[in-house]
């Protein structure tokens, strides 16, 4: 008798995962796609609109402005957090109880929920009871995040740096710890300067964690919502209204489901595209240097 009885039971094992992914990702996404090409007026009144929503979203001045703000915000915080994170990782103690203590201290901001961070900073910056707001006023510096767009921007950036630089620092710290001690010894024997050690040993060995850090921080910051919303409410005017807040106003505030669905898809594609381009570029750069691929 043939021992190879066809057995399709393997499919059953995949099924739970398939159902889970369908509910968590595929169905919601398809719903959004569905909304983005229709104008829904009521339960039984809907019209197919084609790409109309997409076109109007791409030509919307307010959204274009929000997009520019969003890009600037992400670039600024990357420009600050990545070097700062590397710097912190470099000066962190390497072993002993000091290392554990610093690691715990530095991780604390990461554990605070987004809107709590917003509230903390909202209070912190108040002129009457907030330490920073009051302190600056006492020093004679004019500072008001509800009136001055520059102050609002500076505060949001400072808040994000405080909240998320530890993540970059921790990733770099783990990367640095994985460099064998012999490299540093060899560099000392070569009489290499601190800068040379950083440039030719530490930085090349950190490339992989830095790619992860940049990707995570870019995606995170590009989707930022709760912190500026709680801190400034997007103001003064629309100076700190970022993409996700515009989207929420449109979808939840005004119930414009069609346009906001189209907008969501564009938003999603932008994040995907930027991350993909960045990742591919870095990986190609690494591949180009050693033309025959790594070992």
């Amino acid at each position, binding site marked *: 008798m043939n021992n190879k009885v066809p057995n399709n039971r393997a499919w059953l094992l995949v099924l739970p995962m398939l159902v889970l992914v369908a509910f968590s990702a595929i169905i919601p996404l398809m719903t959004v796609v569905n909304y983005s090409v229709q104008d829904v007026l009521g339960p039984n009144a809907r019209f197919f609109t084609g790409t109309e929503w997409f076109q109007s979203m791409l030509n919307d001045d307010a959204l274009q402005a929000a997009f520019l703000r969003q890009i600037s915000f992400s670039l600024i915080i990357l420009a600050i957090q990545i070097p700062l994170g590397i710097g912190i990782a470099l000066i962190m103690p390497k072993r002993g109880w000091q290392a554990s203590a610093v690691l715990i201290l530095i991780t604390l901001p990461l554990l605070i929920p987004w809107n709590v961070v917003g509230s903390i900073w909202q209070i912190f910056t108040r002129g009457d009871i907030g330490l920073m707001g009051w302190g600056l006023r006492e020093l004679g510096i004019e500072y008001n995040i509800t009136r001055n767009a520059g102050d609002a921007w500076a505060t949001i950036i400072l808040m994000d740096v405080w909240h998320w630089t530890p993540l970059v620092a921790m990733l770099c710290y783990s990367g640095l710890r994985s460099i064998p001690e*012999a490299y540093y010894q060899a560099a000392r024997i070569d009489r290499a300067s601190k800068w040379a050690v950083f440039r030719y*040993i530490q930085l090349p060995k950190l490339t992989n964690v830095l790619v992860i850090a940049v990707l995570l921080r870019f995606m995170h910051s590009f989707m930022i919502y709760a912190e500026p919303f709680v801190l400034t409410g997007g103001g003064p005017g629309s100076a700190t209204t970022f993409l996700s807040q515009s989207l929420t106003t449109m979808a939840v505030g005004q119930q414009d489901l069609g346009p906001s669905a189209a907008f969501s898809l564009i938003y999603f594609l932008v994040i995907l595209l930027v991350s993909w381009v960045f990742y591919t570029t870095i990986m190609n750069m690494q591949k180009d240097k*050693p033309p025959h691929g*790594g070992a």
Partner: protein
Amino acid sequence: MSLHLQNIDHIVNGVPHISGIDLALEPGSFNVLLGRTLAGKTTLMRLMAGLEPPTRGKIIMDGKDVTNVSVRKRNVSMVYQQFINYPSLTVYDNIASPLKLAKQPKSDIDKRVREVAEMLHIEQLLNRYPQELSGGQQQRTAMGRALIKDADLILFDEPLVNLDYKLREELRDELRDLFKARNCIAVYATTEPNEALALGGNTAVLHEGKLLQYGPTEQVYREPNGRFSAEMFSEPPINIVPGRLTDNEITFDQTLHFPCDDKLKRLEPGDYDFGVRASHLTLQPQRADDLALDVHVDVAEISGSETFLHVHHERFPLVLHLAGIHQFSVNEPLKVYFPTHQLYAFDKQGHTVHIPVRQGGAAHG
């Protein structure tokens, strides 16, 4: 350049890593540090390089006390067990790096890099990056970095351990030649007695942070000054059988009596540890006075084209080093011939009291 370590102690967190080492290395000498893992080889090298100062003792270079001079101000280079190269620099730039840091003129650097690369047979790889190279090529690059500057002291910390057998032999042979024309002190750490023998030069036997013996490699091998030194410097380790020497007789295990060699008769009667090299035990009688022992096979370990045969007599185990590949079954009874004229004798403190007379042309001496 000469290097003199004077009564060096090194204690880390209360644990002595090096104790009381006194060692003088001659200019232009090739020195092997032989010892098992944790014998203190790497620590001793770090002290020689000046990567850390010793807890006690002095390090004298060319008559100058350099004990507390940092590695940056000494002229040393080092090759590690791991292949350490700058990952983002080409082989060329890696080899050139010590000279670039020393700000030497470009044309000189170029000439030197090509010379060194040729010496190490990596001249066709100069534009590659370390991660594109095989282990052997990476280690050659690291050696290039060590050799390009005219260091007074070059340290090799088990550089060939991570390479395959064939490459190891090849690089080891080249290494000796590379140093023939140089006036620097080379120090080479290894755990393998055979590597020390192949490299020649001088050998220092280390054990638990102490220097057991230092001298020309062959001499240290033939005339170990103690039981530990003999055990450390033989692969497989020398067989040690406790026995009793009476007037004309040696007794092993109270039952095996045999007449002893004339030279041994000069020793005081008493208890000794007798040593016999694994390569001196045979399965066929070599001489009339060989002692035949009935043993049982434990395991036959094949290493390359040789067999290490582990057997046990009633009370003591023995290991034989046989040329060629042989198959034995476990517990197989065998007769092993024990050359009574090739015994080392160690007193109960572990000092050598008798060394066998060399056999003319004996393969393993």
